[in-house]
């Protein structure tokens, strides 16, 4: 199956999903985005990340059926934007998640390890979250499930790479315990204390990642490797902060400033920092075009973090104008990231010294 159109479906969801987010912040938006204001979360999580992560897993597995995952999720986006009944779009997102789950189980079957199991649980959280949304749950109640989808997927991949570090059975046991805490709290995340257990699990996981991630070492390297490490370490800050906000605000109360702050610290600050760092690695693998590293990749990253600070400053101070401005700058950071990546591709690989012909 063609990878480029599948990836494009993901980016349609990203663009319109981000536009929908801006519409929620009362920015004037084209009708297609303004009309999708209620779909901001599903488009970002299922439409963009669902497609991208399922596509990435399909590329890794190199099985044709695994490509049905990003295809189904991408089709879900099309239906959602076409105004189809929520059940149809959500159903396709469930289907996309099920294929990712099957692909993750296949990886687990080939390599039985805690990190492959973590990827399975991440995919399962997407499926169950999308199923609950399909069943009519409001998005804000589904949020912990989708947060778990992204956090566990990232954590599983980081756990995998942490094997480069000196083995520590104790650290592995702590990770397993945190994984259990997060997953078991999910079905109770709608209760007052369930969400606190969930948040505490995320906070502890952020600290675990800071301690065990190879980024602590690779941040001393150069070029792309250091950039990835800076993305990760700065992302862990937002994961810890978002989880702390949830703890401080006694949960996720929709419509509150703390809800906006916690959600965007984690889903935007943490998750997109990870995306910014890995795009130069993953895009070449998925699209077969090199994305040569440039020092100006730090620009969009700085804008992402700076714009989130503005947004959260607005949340903390109750100054909606500031939150609104931060939101616009958030979108600008994503745009800057896309433009910088595309520019790097178009500029191509720096010319290598010609090999002498003998």
């Amino acid at each position, binding site marked *: 199956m063609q990878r480029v159109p599948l990836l494009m479906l993901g980016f349609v969801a990203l663009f319109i999903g981000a536009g929908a987010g801006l519409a929620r912040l009362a920015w004037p938006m084209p009708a297609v985005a303004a009309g999708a204001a209620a779909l901001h979360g599903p488009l970002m999580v299922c439409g963009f990340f669902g497609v991208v992560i399922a596509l990435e*897993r399909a590329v890794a597995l*190199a099985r044709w059926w695994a490509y049905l995952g990003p295809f189904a999720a991408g089709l879900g986006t099309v239906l959602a934007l076409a105004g189809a009944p929520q059940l149809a779009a959500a159903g396709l997102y469930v289907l996309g998640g099920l294929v990712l789950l099957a692909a993750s189980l296949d990886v687990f079957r080939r390599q039985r390890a805690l990190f492959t199991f973590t990827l399975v649980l991440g995919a399962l959280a997407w499926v169950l979250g999308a199923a609950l949304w399909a069943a009519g749950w409001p998005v804000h109640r589904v949020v912990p499930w989708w947060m778990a989808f992204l956090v566990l997927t990232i954590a599983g991949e980081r756990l995998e790479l942490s094997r*480069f570090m*000196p083995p520590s059975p104790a650290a592995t046991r702590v990770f397993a315990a945190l994984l259990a805490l997060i997953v078991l709290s999910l079905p109770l995340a709608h209760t007052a204390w369930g969400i606190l257990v969930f948040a505490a699990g995320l906070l502890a996981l952020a600290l675990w990642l800071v301690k065990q991630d190879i980024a602590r070492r690779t941040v001393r*390297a150069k070029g792309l490797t250091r950039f*990835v490490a800076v993305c990760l370490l700065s992302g862990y800050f937002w994961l810890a902060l978002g989880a702390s906000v949830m703890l401080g605000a006694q949960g996720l109360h929709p419509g509150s400033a703390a809800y906006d702050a916690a959600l965007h610290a984690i889903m935007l600050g943490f998750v997109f920092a990870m995306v910014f760092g890995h795009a130069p690695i993953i895009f*070449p693998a998925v699209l077969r075009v090199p994305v040569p590293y440039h020092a100006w990749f730090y620009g969009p990253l700085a804008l992402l973090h700076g714009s989130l600070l503005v947004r959260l400053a607005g949340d903390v101070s109750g100054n909606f104008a500031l939150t609104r401005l931060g939101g616009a700058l958030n979108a600008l950071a994503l745009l800057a990231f896309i433009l910088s990546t595309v520019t790097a591709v178009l500029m191509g690989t720096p010319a290598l010294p010609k090999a002498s012909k003998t």
Partner: protein
Amino acid sequence: MNMPDESAVRDALCTVDDPEAGMSIVALGLVYNIAVTDDAVNVDMTMTTPACPVADSLVEQSKAAIAAISPPGTPVNVNLVWEPIWNPSMMSGVAKEFFGWPG
């Protein structure tokens, strides 16, 4: 240009980095076997996990690195293998030292 020997192939593969680790696939212990025959270069390599999406690009880079030191038109076969499955003890001393393993 003559056929490269195994150590030349290994040196060429030392230029192929795992971008995340900032280390070559050789240092990380991902290259399992190098065999140079009279008319072809065969390499067995692995990834740290089957969940790794960059396998294809590392294989392509490895092929290009070997082709650059081989006579034009030499068949370069880089096989992705999963047996045995990679584990951290396969990393070289340099990699272990970088990641802080006790010496």
